[in-house]
């Protein structure tokens, strides 16, 4: 296992989608390679930060336009001719 193959396997490693023997080889490499440890750890944090991020509240004007548009169309669906 070299650093390049660690990078190639980061996703599989973080998702634990790999053979146990490959996982063991990666962990052996990580024990001895600080750079790879940091890359794996900061990649894990990248995913977590995005995954945990809360979407911002909708701007009020956007929210009002959404409700108006849905109201108008759903109203039409309800009162329109039967399909």
């Amino acid at each position, binding site marked *: 296992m070299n*650093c*390049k193959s660690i*990078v*190639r396997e*980061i*996703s599989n490693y973080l998702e634990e989608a790999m053979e146990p023997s490959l996982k063991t080889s990666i962990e052996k490499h990580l024990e001895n390679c600080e*750079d790879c440890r*940091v*890359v794996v*750890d*900061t*990649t894990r*944090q*990248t*995913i977590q*930060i*995005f*995954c*945990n*991020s*809360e*979407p*911002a*509240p*909708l701007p009020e004007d*956007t*929210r*009002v*336009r*959404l*409700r*108006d*548009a*849905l*109201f108008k*169309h*759903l*109203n039409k*669906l*309800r009162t329109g001719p039967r399909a």
Partner: protein
Amino acid sequence: MSASKLNPLQPRTPLPSQVVKDDEGSLVAAAKAGDIDAFETLVGRYERKIFRLAQNITQNKEDAEDVMQEAFLKSYQHLSEFQGNSRFYTWLVRIAVNQALMKLRKRRPNQVSLDEEVDTGEDTMPREVEDWGPSPEERYKQAELGTILSSTIAELEPPFRIVFQLRDIEELSTEETAEALGLSIPAVKSRLLRARLKLRQKLNRYFKQGENS
């Protein structure tokens, strides 16, 4: 009349009497049976996420608004086709992604082809290797962090940005992402890896230890 209320019309048929508030399945069943209030609850629950998804894909506020409206409308119109094999939210995301891709292709017809080969390249070897320490995001206020994340993801090319959005933000599976985008599973995996490494590199400038601490 309050614009915040989706549809105050009285339904023609009796509605299911009870909707369990925190149960997506019950809300969807009620909406299918004609309960517009239940559908409004679903809209309220997911509008922020769908807007962010649309904004991240289209990178345009007007388009994102259109996408969000169209996605909710389409989901309502086609609710009877929703079989419940996946979460309602996953189904809604797929509708929104289709709408967003159409917008994106209209604006940038020559730049957005998701199914063509993209260079997932050899330049993924990390250049800057610096520790971030625990919980680097806590060094920023919520709004500030939101701005950092949205501007960082905006720097990715669409094929990478969209795969990352679906897999790591919306938490679709690799298979669901592949199906939603018409890509092979290996293509999703290689783009996701590239996207994660690129974002890691870009976030490094904010989160490396010593920055903003």
